[in-house]
């Protein structure tokens, strides 16, 4: 029996390497980790968790990222020579970045994790840029507007070093910033190399297309918006990591009155939302789904035929749903999550995000995607 399991773990690892990011890849690596643990091989368990952290980070399983890292952290504390924390700093950056997506993780815990990471960076004499971006993103997520502005300015002018994210990922974050400020043209100009396929990374331009839908819509550049929707959705349709981006597409479909297609996407991805680890991504999806379903109700459709997961609270075995009830349920989820986030953050960002979506009703401008 001994020896066998290593081969089996190797085989799992090889299969995982050939899979795109997503549930299957994540599950396979979890299985490999369990094998190592079962046989008490801590070194292998540590190395495999490194792989699992990557897969879960890009496969939409934030809870698994945090748990796998916590285990590795335990080993680092026990034996820092054998398990050098420095080698995991890159991943730790993702880990800390994910924390604010769980309202049950407190402000103090997030602040402590940021400080702890900053000390880790300082120990290896890394520059400040990566840390500034992470603090900026966290402040922004948590609705600390002034602090976020200050950190943005500091981040942008700090030199790059070996621990900063790649230029493409940084550019993608810059786009979010411009879009948030309503700088549509600027965002689109900066996004050009990403849209032309000249630059890309693991999640770029996957997310970028979703980010740019609203700016293009606002500028009336509808053909480009349609391209972004079609190209973008194809990139994200099979990985739950992009649940929030699916939300952006739902919003766009509602705004342009493509309700049939909107419902098809809603039907396909509600299952992700129901069990998604990231509460923040759930919020984005539910808020957009509420908007879309609200549009369906306004269009006079009382019922819709949808195949929704059996564990959905409103599940109907005859597949017939009252659109008003669905819209209300999505809205209630969104409101509940907004309350949790705003309570934890001590700001009103999520309430304001809901107001923004609420106001979209007045902006609807039909545009046929086909033909």
């Amino acid at each position, binding site marked *: 029996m001994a020896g066998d399991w290593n081969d089996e773990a190797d085989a799992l690892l090889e299969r995982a390497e050939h899979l795109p990011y997503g549930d299957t890849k994540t599950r396979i690596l979890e299985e490999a980790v369990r094998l190592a*643990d079962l046989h008490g091989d801590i070194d292998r368990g540590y190395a495999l968790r490194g792989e699992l952290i990557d897969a879960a980070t890009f496969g939409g399983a934030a809870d698994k990222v945090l748990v796998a890292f*916590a285990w590795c952290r335990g080993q680092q504390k026990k034996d820092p020579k054998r398990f050098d924390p420095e080698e995991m700093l890159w991943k730790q950056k993702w880990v800390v970045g994910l924390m604010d997506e769980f309202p049950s993780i407190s402000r103090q815990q997030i602040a402590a994790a940021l400080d702890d990471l900053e000390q880790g960076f300082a120990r290896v004499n890394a520059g400040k840029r990566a840390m500034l971006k992470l603090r900026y993103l966290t402040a922004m997520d948590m609705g600390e507007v002034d602090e976020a502005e200050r950190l943005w300015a500091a981040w942008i002018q700090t030199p790059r070093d070996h621990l900063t994210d790649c230029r493409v990922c940084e550019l993608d974050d810059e786009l979010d910033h411009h879009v948030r400020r309503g700088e549509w043209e600027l965002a689109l100009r900066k996004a050009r190399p990403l849209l032309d*396929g000249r630059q890309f990374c693991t999640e770029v331009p996957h997310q970028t297309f979703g980010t740019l839908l609203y700016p293009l819509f606002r500028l009336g550049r509808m053909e480009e918006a349609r391209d972004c929707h079609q190209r973008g959705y194809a990139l994200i349709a099979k990985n739950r990591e992009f649940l929030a981006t699916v939300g952006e597409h739902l919003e766009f479909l509602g705004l342009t009155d493509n309700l049939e297609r909107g419902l098809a996407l809603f039907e396909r991805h509600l299952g992700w939302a129901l069990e998604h680890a990231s509460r923040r991504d759930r919020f984005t999806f539910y808020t957009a789904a509420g908007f879309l379903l609200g549009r369906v109700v306004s269009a006079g459709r009382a019922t819709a035929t949808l195949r929704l997961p059996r564990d959905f609270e409103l599940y109907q075995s005859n597949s017939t749903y009252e659109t008003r009830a669905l819209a209300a349920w999505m809205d209630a989820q969104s409101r509940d999550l907004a309350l949790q986030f705003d309570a934890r953050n001590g700001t009103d960002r999520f309430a304001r995000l809901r107001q923004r979506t609420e106001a979209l009703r007045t902006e609807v401008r039909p545009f046929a995607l086909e033909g």
Partner: protein
Amino acid sequence: MDHRFQVSLRGVIDLLSHHLYSSPGVYVRELLQNATDAIRARQHLESQHPGTLRLELMEKQDGGATTLVFTDDGVGLTEEEVHRFLATIGESSKREALEARRNDFIGQFGIGLLSCFMVCDELLVVTRSARGTHPTLEWRGRHDGTYDVRPAAHPLERPGTQVFLTARADMAEWFTPERVRSLVLHYGGLLPFPIHLTVGGQTEHLNRDGAPWSASYESPSERREALLAYGRQVFDMDFLDYIPLRATSGDVQGVAFVLPASPHFNAKQKHRVYLKSMLLSESADNLLPDWAFFVKCVVNANALRPTASRESFYEDAVLERARGSLGVALRRYLMDLAREEPRALQRLIALHGLSMKALALDDDDFFRLVIDWLPFETSLGMMTLGDYRRAYSLVRYTPTLDGFRQVARVAAAQGLCIINAAYTHDTALLERLPQLFPEVRAEPFSSAELPQSFEELTDDERHAVRSLVRVADRALLPFRCGVEVRKFLPAEVPTLYSTDEEGAFRREAERAREGADDLYAGVVAGVLEGAPGQLHAKLCFNYLNPVVRRMARVPDREVMKLSVEMLYVQSLLLGQHPLSAREMTLLNQGLLGLIDARLGDDDEGPENDGGPGSREVH
């Protein structure tokens, strides 16, 4: 008059040969490209101009260097244009500049000529412009960077360009008739105008066929034969079938060949692509949708944008739409097969199941058509989903292999058929199944669901296990594990640890928390907070097992508790669940306790110091 280039020509040639070109043989490609561009430019002026390209190899009888003369009847160059291309050469010292210049006719012409210096020391270009009346010019360039331009001693009779290359001594191998012929066919075999090669007075028409997919054939079977022969020639492989490809976006045409064997994993295939009939790459891999790894293809694109390395195309909107159309062509082939030759499709599925599963995930119509033919591994052997559904009304599957192992044996003994959906795409397909077929029920299955299929105890039996349940409940509560007693097969299995993915994740989180520092232990607690379920799992005792029945009768509660704990740990290990530190302690203490009990009372009696093995056993 003599001139000198503005920059070190050596430097530019060095840059080209080391960074831009993979082999000296590309000089043929560059000259073909120049001639093609020139002919196309002339066709803009005179739409009926057919265009011809002539190559002549002049081998010296005395063993001196061979000269290659490359003649086109394209648009030719004016004096002003000659100076422009020379200026381009001067500016071409950066790779980016080179790439940018390639998009313009004159720029490409200059860069193309430069590549010739990889194989010769001196170059003579004789050219006459087709735009108005211009004299024939002669440009002589040397590798040391000097050149001169003058009116030609022998004017050309018609517009066009002639390039004379005299092989450098160490490059003679690139000038043999065989090498030149094969390079021309390699790079320009699909060019839509005739290319002639003259050697020793004999002229050969090299590219008689053009693109084989554009040719006309007597019959479909002849077309099929010709295309499969072409596929064999290009890829050295006997393909099963061919599929015509066409996309308006990017102006793409070509043919896909169905691979005779399943590729290792879902490796992206390397395709051969031509840009405007000139070979661009033999290893383009972003031309087809992700699922289409059951074919290799040859295509020509007239309007896609090549990357700097010229290995593939930029991921832009045009390529995206082209890929969509090519995907539609492949899908249409499969859909037709499904309707008209289902057996052929089933053979294809047997060979390329992974590719077919990937397409089914991408395409609902294809999913509906083929899902019942797709093969799955089950606890009762391999079967198609159709066979499975005919036998069972509920489709049960496990998303992981260890999940499957945990249930396979016991499930099979109860006559339950479970699909092992740990293979690539299987879980995603089965999750999609009820969305597309509302009448079908498909549910993930785990050891948590198993006890539902087990027989309940009678009232008497329930009475008989009352104290076992009470003791076990209390013993396992710290491990967040509930207790149940049922009857199930096989009878040799005393207990089953039943849990689902959520439970397994909570076990993992618990173990991570045990070892982490306060900061991250707190974070893990935060992650778990609010997630449902107090109990991770259930330990199901098998009343058909004789040991379990004896346990239930043991009067000594401590022995009963110890046995429960041992069975708990054993069932965890059998289910391949890693033990937490506390469970490990349980195992160690329990083993010692059992040994202690077997040794019986000796003079000193049981130890009672609170350490391992301190349980009171009588």
